[in-house]
Structures are given as C-alpha cells and as structure tokens.
C-alpha cells in the first residue's frame, strides 16, 4: 500500500500543478509583462477626487463609457454588477471604476445616479475634456462624437481593463464576456 502511495504521489502532484496552472490562466487578453496602470486624478461620482492609485490593495476593473449609451455600456455595467455580486465576500476586494467619454453631459451627479442603478459601489469619473483626453490617451482608448438626428452619440472602446492589487495593468476583457469570466479573472488576480 505504501509503495502504491509512493508511486502515485508524484502523479498526484503533477495533476495538482497542472490544474493550478490551468486555473491561473486568464480568460481575458493578457499583457506581458504588465505595466503600471497610468494614474489619474479626476472628479469622482461621489463628489470627491477619483485617484486610481487610491485603490491599491483592491483589484480594479476600469471601463470607459457614457451615461447616455443605450447599448454597450449598460450591458457591460450589468455584467460587472453581476460579477461583483457573484464574488460574494471577495467582492469587497474589487472596485469598478467607470470613466466617462462624454464630459459634456456626464457630471458627477448624473454618473452617480446612473451607476447606482447597477451597483452603488461602482465609482464614476468625470472631468474636463482635456483631463479625460489625457486619461484616454494613456490607456489607448478611442472616443468619437457621432452626430445623430436628436443630438450625438459616442463611439468608444468597449473593453474592460483588469488592474491588480499592486496597480499593474494585467489584462483586458473584450466586450461580450459573461459575469463568470470576470469572476474567474478577478479570482486569478486576487490569488496573485
């Protein structure tokens, strides 16, 4: 029996390692090596200052959008809200940051109301057009104003950036993923 156990132990170890490697793989697109997420300081939807580096110690999901968006943004935020809920107690280690690409319409109060419909813990960021353009440039985000018969809409990048607890931009989740994918990748970041 002891001999069988001795023979099986290395196999068992290999299986555990293989499983661990598999579970630490991201579903999102991964940067290698990760770089420090560019810091910014803009106006928060809570009325205070929103500084990204203040969330060190938490996993940050950073997304860009606008409150008048009727397609992509509400879907993304709903998915993030569900993921946050599914994380349960671990959800306290997660912060969703949503930066507007439409500072003309999105003031702090409007963003607060919009975001709290999804999850009151989500924080929004707004600022001057120049401030937000600088943030977008640092993250490679595109945002274009498109005129419509009743005003305008914004065409913008729909990815969600995953930032680890040390402030490193590790991964990027394209639009279309389900809450479980976020739960998986946030867990990977929390285990780092």
């Amino acid at each position, binding site marked *: 029996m002891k001999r069988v156990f001795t023979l099986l132990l290395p196999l068992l170890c290999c299986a555990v390692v293989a499983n661990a490697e598999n579970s630490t793989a991201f*579903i999102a*697109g*991964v*940067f*290698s*090596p990760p*770089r420090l997420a560019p810091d910014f300081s803009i106006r928060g939807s809570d009325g205070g200052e929103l500084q990204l580096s203040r969330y060190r110690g938490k996993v940050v999901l950073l997304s860009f959008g606008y409150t008048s968006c009727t397609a992509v943004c509400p879907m993304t935020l709903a998915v993030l809200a569900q993921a946050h809920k599914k994380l349960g107690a671990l959800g306290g280690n997660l912060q969703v940051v949503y930066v507007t690409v439409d500072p003309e319409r999105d003031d702090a109060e409007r963003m607060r109301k919009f975001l709290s419909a999804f999850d009151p813990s989500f924080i929004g960021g707004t600022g001057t057009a120049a401030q937000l353009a600088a943030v977008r440039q*640092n*993250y*490679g*985000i*595109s945002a274009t104003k498109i005129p419509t018969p009743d005003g305008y809409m914004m065409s913008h*990048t729909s*990815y969600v950036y995953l930032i680890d607890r040390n402030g490193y931009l590790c991964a*990027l989740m*394209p639009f*279309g*993923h389900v809450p479980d994918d976020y739960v998986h990748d946030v867990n990977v970041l929390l285990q780092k």
Partner: protein
Amino acid sequence: MTGGRLSGYLRRYWVCIPLAGVVIAAMGWAALTPIRTESRDNLFEIPKGTWARRMAGNKVEILPAEIRLTLGVRDILVLKNLDDVPQVFGSILMMPGQSFRLPFEMAASYQFACTAHVSGQMTIVVDPNPVSPWARLRWRAGNLWRSGQWQ
C-alpha cells in the same frame, strides 16, 4: 453508357483509377479527422525600427490587413511590440517590449484601429470551429493554400 464503352474507358485510363482512389482517401481523411495543432497561438511581431522607418517616409506594413483565426484550432492572437515606441492595436496600447495575448471565443469579424498599419485599420476574422467534414476539408485546403502546411 454501354458495357463495351465503359471497359474501353477503363482500359484507356486505368492509371487514373488508383490515383483517384488516393485523392478520395486523402479527402476522406481530411474531412473526417479532427484538426489538431501544436499551439493555438498566432504570433505577430512589430519589429524594432518600424516607427522610425515610417517617420522616414517608408510605407511599412508589419501585420497583414486581415488576420484569420479559427475557433478551437488557432484562436489566440499574440502580438509582440519589439519596436522602441508604444504601438496601439485596437485600443490595446502595447509598450516597447510588451506582448499581448488575446483569446477569441466568438466567431465574428472584428475591426481594429492599428498604428502598425499604414491604413490604420486591421480586420480579424474569427471563423467557427470546423467540426463538420466539409468545414474540416475547407479549413485544411485553405490552410494548405495560405501556409503550405497540411495539418
């Protein structure tokens, strides 16, 4: 067709019969055998000096205007920026020396803005997993045509 004419044809073209058999067998194998690849990664590198050459007025195309991926076979795009300056692929900002690995899970056509292109545009077409015999045959033929590899 009469029996006499058929045997005439067979006598004249008897060499073609085993050849046709081999072709049919190869096509049958290509249609029925699942596609296996060593890696699902499709690596593209932006070489060092790309930006400098472009600034000097040269038209430098590093990545193809269209990249085709196939779900379950080769569905992970790997980009490596070996240049001295940051490069933007879609909204993905890659610093010098950084690489980005993006798995695709949905068959679709994706449009990306890309500074590695003179046109600034790039399309990634993700084809569905070739599970039917006809799809496997088509994929293998296309792969043979594009890369000269039989998988």
